[in-house]
């Protein structure tokens, strides 16, 4: 199986490669459009800031390529947010694959920003969450979020519900870090590889 992890200087990609390696899967870190197009599976990790990530994607022509992909695709963290239409972070136009607009959490004394740590998942849908239970814990680190919509396939709450995972056709994406979420995260990655 040819697995492409998209390289766009998007932060902690090494952890995603290691997580795949622990599953016995050798993935390739690449920004080559041809390689990405013919891969069996595509992972799109990301950390950092939306505007600079979009600049990098545009510089490599990946903003044109990604919406046309047809194989199973998994965005992680910022890699999920970038699939939306627009982000409040740097007033940024995104890839436009999913219909959501990304907003910033408003901190209050009980809810620090970033939303950082282990939180639970609710209302799980799709085979991505096969074998998981409602209220399973995963690890989040983010200051921006996608609201809940018909594309939401898992919800988190902080304190209001937000999209912990989204899906549109072959495009799956999670706000949390599958590669850092212990056995629960490993199972989600495994499920993705089986799609």
């Amino acid at each position, binding site marked *: 199986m040819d697995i492409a992890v998209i390289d766009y200087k998007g932060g902690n990609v090494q952890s995603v490669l290691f997580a795949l390696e622990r599953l016995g899967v050798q993935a390739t870190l690449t920004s080559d459009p041809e390689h990405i197009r013919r891969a069996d599976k595509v992972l799109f990790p990301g950390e950092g800031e939306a505007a600079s990530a979009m600049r990098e994607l545009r510089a490599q022509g990946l903003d044109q390529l990604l919406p046309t992909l047809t194989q199973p695709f998994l965005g992680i963290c910022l890699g999920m947010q970038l699939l939306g239409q627009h982000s409040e972070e740097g007033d940024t136009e995104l890839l436009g694959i999913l219909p959501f607009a990304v907003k910033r959490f408003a901190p209050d004394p009980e809810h620090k*920003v970033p939303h950082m*740590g282990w939180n639970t998942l609710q209302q799980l849908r799709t085979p991505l969450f096969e074998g998981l239970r409602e209220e399973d*814990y995963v690890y989040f680190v983010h200051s921006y979020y996608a609201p809940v919509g018909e594309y939401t396939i898992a919800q988190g709450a902080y304190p209001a519900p937000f999209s912990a995972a989204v899906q549109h056709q072959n495009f799956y994406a999670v706000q949390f870090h599958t590669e850092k979420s212990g056995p629960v995260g490993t199972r989600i990655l495994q499920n993705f590889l089986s799609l």
Partner: protein
Amino acid sequence: MLTKRIIPCLDVKDGRTVKGVRFEGLRDAGDPVALAAQYARQGADELVFLDITATNQKRQTLVALVRDVARELDIPFTVGGGIGAVADVEALLLNGADKVSLNSAALHTPELIDELARRFGSQCIVVAVDARHTPETGWQVYTRAGTQATGRDAVAWCREAAERGAGELLLTSMSHDGTKDGFALDVTGAVCQAVTVPVIASGGAGRMEHFTDVFQQAKADAGLAASIFHFGEIGILDLKQHLRQAGVPVRI
């Protein structure tokens, strides 16, 4: 619901864990990778590695350690200890560290926080603050492994670090560290009120109730300890069960 985090801290020197960690069934207590994996299995929410290497090879050994840990560990970890240069931070993040913690370098050059947060995102920049209390000065920030007073007020420095872009603060009370008499609830509470980023409380944990207090009274987001976990005085699962019974949300 977002849970309160329990974070064991491991001191490393020349790529090995130090401070006599005693773990049943662990053949090499100096192996940071085996130790980290053991803590992850026991339910630790995150780990912190504090590097106390003081040689020219520091950077290479630390990057190698981070890579080895990241290859095995499926929970997040932070690396700290004498880190200052942007290139060092980049190397540690690229090799799999989730967060990097700054201490003396941030005090010396506060603009470094802004630069690192801009470049890598606030989520991976932790500022560690060592504070000590005296009746004359109140809570003051110390530098150089807690040996040198800076004359800066601890709460004010924490606020500045957060405003400059730190995504998290690691607040250690030097007055409580090693006492096992409990966390510094007053200064931890004051910092938690002063900033909108998560705060890790450190220094003074000796009993399970100390964690309940720091979460419920001081509103800390995470509790960090070293020896009580390393010597098996408190098991992480036992601690989490205790916390859950006391009404503190934890991941079990």
